């Protein structure tokens, strides 16, 4: 209608109205492009983007179960000995930290530490996760949350503000705590930073304690926090680890640790161990070694050897404490009788080597089996072994003694006590090797073989309890997460270890030995009101380069105490005492005596006849 037939190109002929409408059409076109694009993204490519969304939004987590707590007996009740506590790991995601210096200063002002270290950590290149501090307490974590909140409230309305706490986060972790301090540390072991039990109960029963992790599959926010109620969420609750009740008696353990420490000090020894067990069940009531460690600060330990429970992990040549077991074997075989006497020449030649008595009263003479123990005669033990062979050490003697050591007394194999790194000890093969007769003569008095103190205690228990070998154990019961406690029944490993009357004979011999030597053993007030007996052991320490050290000994003592019958078996060990005399009687026996007195005074021992 206008004269200009092509107004758009010239532009001049267009009225403002036309220009506006032209522009409006262009705007509508752009709008429709957007709608078409939205249709493409939301309808045609919907599946692709839904998958992409799930790939980043759906996360699968393992929910850590709570580790089982450990309790122990205390009087008639139970007390926790290992608990869990929530602690927090402070970490940074450097990608989100705005200003490392500002963040570091803020962190240092709340939890202490050097801001320089934090800066360095936050500036770690190529990572999305740097640990800044570990094991923060709930209070420290609350302080951090408060600081973060205060900052947010102050700066939230300011665009462009620099958040010191941005990219800094806390993660909950669980750590073990020890309400009884370092009590029974080596029995307990510890849980390392990866949550794995190391040493002691924690290692041996890691599977039961750790529980079963739960699974969480959930749509989460970018930080990984599950968004509530999403149909795609899958939750499998974790199953908490089992609660474990130990056979340990806390009061007895405390006193044992005190007495052990005192005894080692007076024997001028750097290390040793002791334990008390119930011979009628195999339950360990108290067990300790020295030196020990604080499980709450296991990471501060330089020398990892303090982690080991030497009583179960460090076999040693047991020395003369073997003699009652040798005598029991001979009596049980019927090759000697209880009151039999024999002529002891004070030395035997075996495989060209002299067997002599290194302990006191080694002269030749007529001896009884009770004398063999009371005087601790190596030649007596050798004679007992000879009787097993019909008068000489031979294959029959070796086979029989080997059978007793390994099948009756369970030497050379682990007892299966709930402890990490249990050692089996070694018993020489009766038919393989050189100088077998000499080697076997040595084993009859506890040399040339090794066993742990625990194995010795368990074997003695089986002899004096009437012949039943109970598996030594530290766990009295398990409870699941719901709390119902199931008592673990004592496990019988072998019945008829020795005949019941043989056991009583050995008990008598050991009581006799103790009564003869009680002053030397540091038990001056002996009145015969209690069943108390024992046997010392002094073993030369094997030189790693062959033979034995002339001047290095381990002292051991193995005994029992009770009212009418033995109620407790005690084994003590003192490594390289720094005082003169025989290590067994001078260093290890006094610890036994103190422990026996302690048990008599405090732990339900009723004097004979009452």
């Amino acid at each position, binding site marked *: *209608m206008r004269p200009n037939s092509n107004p*758009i*190109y*010239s*532009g*001049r002929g*267009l*009225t*403002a*109205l036309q*220009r*506006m409408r032209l*522009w*409006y059409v262009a*705007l*509508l076109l*752009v*709008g429709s*492009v*957007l*709608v078409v*694009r*939205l*249709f493409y*993204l*939301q*309808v045609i*490519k*919907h599946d*692709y*983007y*839904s998958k*992409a*969304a799930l790939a*980043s*939004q759906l996360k699968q987590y393992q929910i850590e179960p709570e580790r089982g707590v450990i309790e122990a007996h205390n009087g008639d009740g139970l007390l926790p000995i290992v608990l869990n506590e929530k602690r927090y790991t402070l970490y940074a995601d450097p990608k989100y930290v*705005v*200003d490392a210096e500002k963040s570091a200063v803020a962190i240092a002002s709340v939890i202490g530490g050097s801001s320089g270290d934090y800066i360095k950590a936050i500036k770690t290149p190529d990572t999305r996760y740097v640990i800044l501090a570990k094991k923060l307490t709930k209070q420290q974590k609350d302080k951090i*949350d408060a600081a*973060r*909140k205060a900052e*947010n*409230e102050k700066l*939230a*309305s*300011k*665009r*462009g*503000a*620099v*958040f010191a706490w941005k990219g800094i986060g806390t993660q909950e972790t669980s750590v073990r705590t020890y309400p009884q301090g370092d009590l029974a540390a080596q029995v307990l072991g510890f849980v390392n930073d990866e949550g794995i039990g190391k040493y002691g109960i924690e290692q041996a029963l890691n599977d039961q304690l750790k529980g079963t992790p739960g699974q969480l599959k959930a*749509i*989460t*926010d*970018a*930080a990984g*926090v599950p*968004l509530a109620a*999403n149909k795609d969420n899958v939750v499998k609750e974790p199953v908490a680890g089992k609660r474990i009740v130990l056979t340990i008696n806390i009061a007895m353990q405390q006193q044992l640790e005190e007495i052990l420490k005192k005894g080692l000090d007076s024997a001028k020894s750097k290390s040793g161990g002791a334990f008390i067990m119930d011979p009628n069940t195999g339950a360990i009531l108290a067990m300790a070694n020295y030196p020990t460690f604080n499980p709450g600060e296991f990471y501060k330990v330089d020398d990892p050897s303090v982690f080991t429970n030497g009583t179960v992990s460090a076999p040693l040549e047991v020395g003369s404490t073997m003699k009652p077991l040798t005598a029991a074997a001979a009596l049980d075989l019927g090759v000697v009788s209880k009151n039999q006497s024999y002529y002891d020449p004070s030395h035997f030649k075996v495989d060209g080597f002299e067997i002599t008595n290194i302990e006191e009263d080694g002269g030749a003479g007529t001896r009884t089996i009770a004398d063999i123990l009371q005087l601790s005669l190596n030649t007596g033990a050798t004679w007992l072994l000879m009787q097993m062979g019909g008068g000489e050490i031979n294959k029959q003697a070796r086979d029989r003694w080997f059978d007793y050591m390994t099948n009756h007394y369970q030497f050379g194999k682990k007892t299966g006590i709930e402890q990490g790194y249990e050692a089996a000890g070694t018993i020489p093969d009766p038919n393989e090797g050189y100088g077998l007769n000499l080697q076997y003569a040595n084993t009859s008095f506890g040399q040339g073989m090794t066993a742990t103190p625990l194995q010795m205690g368990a074997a003695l228990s089986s002899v004096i309890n009437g012949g039943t070998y109970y598996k030594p154990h530290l766990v009295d019961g398990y409870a699941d997460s719901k709390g119902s406690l199931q008592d673990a029944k004592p496990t019988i490993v072998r019945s008829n270890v020795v005949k019941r009357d043989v056991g009583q004979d050995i008990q008598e011999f050991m009581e006799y030995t103790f009564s003869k030597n009680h002053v030397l053993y540091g038990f001056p007030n002996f009145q015969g009101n209690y069943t108390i007996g024992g046997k010392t052991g002094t073993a030369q320490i094997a030189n790693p380069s062959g033979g034995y050290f002339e001047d290095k000994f381990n002292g051991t003592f193995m005994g029992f105490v009770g009212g009418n019958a033995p109620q407790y078996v005690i084994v003590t060990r003192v490594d390289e005492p720094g005082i003169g005399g025989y290590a067994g009687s001078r260093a290890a026996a006094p610890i036994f005596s103190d422990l026996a007195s302690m048990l008599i005074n405090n732990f339900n021992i009723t004097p004979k006849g009452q």
Partner: protein
Amino acid sequence: MIGRSASVGRRASVLEQGGTGRRHRPDYWLPILSILLLVVGLIVIYSISPGLAAQKNVSDNYYVNKQLIAIVLGIVGFIVMANIPYKYWRHWSKPLLVVAGIATVVAIIMPVIPQYPAHRWVRLGSFSFQSVELLKFALIVWLAKFFAERKAQGGLGNTTETIKPLLIVLVVLGIIVGKIQSDLGSIGVIVAVMTAMAFVAGVPLKRVVMVGGVVAIGAVLLVAGSSYRRDRLATFLHPEKDCQNSGYQVCQALIAVGSGGMFGLGVGNSVQAYGYLPEAQNDSIFAILAEKFGFIGVTVLIGLFAAFFARLFKIAERAPDVYSQLLVVGILAWLSTQAIINIGAMVGLLPLKGITLPFISYGGTSLLFVTGALGMIFQISRYTSFSPSNLESEGNRYESTAHRGRDGRPHYTAVSRRPGA
């Protein structure tokens, strides 16, 4: 033609009564549509507020409350502006430009914070605003006056009179906003506003194209001169190549939009707002909306915007004079360009520019300027004629109204009445 001449005739009679048009009922569709859009934005912010609050460790209703306050302030701004006769702005255009200039200088010399390295913010205590928002508004007010005057003088195509000042303004703004403040998005909006106003005012297309060429060269220089921008351009072209770093926001926006599907995940079910998509309440709010309400929902939203812009067009078409018409056109260009740039970025058609979606995005200052500008248009809508005016043929009318403005207020009839109703 008959219709138009009739309209012109009637307009002439109105002019004889001594005014730019009779004062009558304003266009109530304008506030109604604005409120609808604001409510949509508020619903989205309300539904994602707990998630945002959790990340920032503030109370659940922090964002909703602040947005509600902003809306209330915005309504006040609307009412105030609706009651300031729009013609006053013609006298205030220069002082306003000076204030905007000062604000811009303040924003530039203010020490920046590492998190926001751009010199864009004027911070006064806990209050802060982007100086460019004021600048855009001042520019529209000034351009309306500038073009109206040039048009009255018949000098719209004149290089010295019209094109040169425009080019100078453009270059200065390009340097200040584009280069120093690194705010290419706002430059885009400013260019769109100037182009639309020039075009509607009647600047010959040849000139518009020429200026466009200068802008294009400037843009290329700006992009080529900054590694940051080169990266952003590369990201825009292939966001999926670097979804973990520079392409992160685009990738997350596309995931939000795409996973919404036809009907959306539902108002309470956005996942991307929970820390995945940066600026979920702000620049990226459209993607969250698309995730929640799906294709149907965003089509309705775009329809709402289209209706809103159509309303502005109608007001512009029927504007009582060139000056007010250009004001409406400028504001329309400003808001529509922001919406297009924002949505375009969220669907991967345009590079991310940090431009808010009018009415919907969280944030007080941009909302205040938007509602204020709408108040001005609302006021203009009181004086529109009831059929499209053709101001083209009344080039000299500006003179008469201008002189009337100086004389005093027009004589309004006491009762608003629709003529012919």
